[in-house]
């Protein structure tokens, strides 16, 4: 047992740990496979040609962004209900990572749109909802990063976080209706859904695995960074209290 004591005494020098190393390696393998299948082994699409290869990262990123957003709402609800810092930090970490994946989804969406629709941005229901998701996440993150006492900051962000996913659902619904009013279903909708199977479906499946593992890996690390940051703040606070007391006595 002495080994674990010594480790505890010195403590890990980074946010890494055995679990993150395992997940990290698995993620790298999956990413490698995704690269291999996505760019070389899987065939061109009969209609879109190479452009379909962008979808192998675009679709999983979009899904993970929504999952991250749902996690933020769950975390916020549990913080408000149970006052557990662990869940609040999870909510914050997953919101930030969800924002990264939302950005990726938007960029790849536009890059996919250019060769297939001939234009970078189309008010397609999915893309528009993803753009709104980005704005909602930026609002949450802007609020969460305002310097204030942890409880104040956490409580306010939890209220916004609590409403994040319901907002996304309502926005998605309204954009869906709004979109079908003045635009025929886009190529994107039937292009992917109808005829993807065989090797292409397998590649997409790898995409989900790879992006999913990367999300988990990032989440664990980002959580620990947030945890350390809060600990550091407490540390500074204790020091500030000590200085404050000294200030009184000196006079």
């Amino acid at each position, binding site marked *: 047992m002495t080994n674990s004591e010594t480790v505890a005494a010195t403590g890990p020098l980074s946010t890494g740990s055995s679990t993150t190393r395992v997940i990290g390696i698995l993620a790298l393998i999956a990413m490698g496979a995704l690269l291999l299948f996505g760019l070389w082994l899987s065939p061109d699409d009969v209609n879109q040609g190479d452009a379909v290869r962008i979808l192998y990262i675009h679709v999983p990123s979009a899904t993970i962004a929504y999952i991250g957003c749902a996690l933020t709402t769950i975390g916020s609800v549990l913080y*408000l209900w149970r006052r557990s810092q662990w869940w609040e930090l999870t909510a914050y970490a997953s919101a930030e990572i969800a924002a990264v994946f939302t950005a990726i989804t938007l960029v790849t969406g536009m890059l996919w749109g250019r060769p297939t629709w001939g234009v970078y941005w189309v008010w397609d229901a999915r893309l528009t909802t993803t753009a*709104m998701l980005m*704005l*909602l996440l*930026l*609002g949450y993150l*802007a*609020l969460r990063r*305002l310097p*204030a*006492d942890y*409880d*104040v900051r956490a*409580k*306010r962000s*939890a*209220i*916004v976080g*609590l*409403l994040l996913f*319901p*907002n996304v659902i*309502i*926005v998605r*619904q*309204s*954009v869906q*209706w*709004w979109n079908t*009013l003045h635009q025929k279903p886009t190529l994107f909708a039937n292009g992917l859904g109808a005829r993807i199977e065989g090797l292409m479906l397998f590649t997409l499946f790898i995409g989900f695995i790879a992006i999913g593992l990367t999300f988990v890996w990032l989440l664990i690390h980002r959580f620990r960074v947030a945890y350390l940051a809060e600990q550091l703040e407490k540390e500074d606070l204790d020091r500030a209290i000590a200085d404050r007391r000294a200030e009184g006595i000196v006079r």
Partner: protein
Amino acid sequence: MMWRSARLIAGKDLRLEWRSRVGMNQVLPFAAVVLVMFAFALNPDSDLLQKATPGLFWVSVLFLALTTVGRTFSIESSEGISDSIRLSGLEPSGFFLGKVISIGVQLLILEVLLGIGVTVLYRASPAEWPLLLSTVGVATVGIAAAGTLYGMVAVSLRVRETILPLLLLPVLTPVLIGSTRAFEAAINETPADGWPWIGLMAVFSFVYVAAGIFGFGALMEDS
């Protein structure tokens, strides 16, 4: 108990509004300016302005809502009032509902006047009154509820002017889309298209009123 606090807050806010008249001599002229700006931007004689009227109307309402929410909460956090409110024994949910009512009433008045302005300036022809009125009703409740909740979240932060729009406007897109489409359905005399939007906005308003009633205590807690 909650309704008593709500009545007290709404009464106080509306009396405050009546006495300071800021709504009348600042927000209303601002609304008129916005309408005229849109007219210049969209060259009134083309029918583009006519078609865009519902959208312009509701975008103007959103801006008015932002100023109204911003103002009412800046008053609440000046002169040590936020301390007195927390000491006053008012129910947080009552405070929230009172604010929603007072902001809602102020918005309704502005919407009526804006509606008159739009009808005159843009030669809009309102029809299908039941759909129009229910759109105004349910949209105003949604905007007031979300405005109060996010207004309170942003109330005492130094950067309130910038964070309130960033938090509130993206959240209000379903109301903007819903109310604009419902108005268009009314003007094109196809009300059937409009009613689903009323349903969506009703869900939106319900979510925010519920979130406000249960979450507001936590928000009022901190300075």
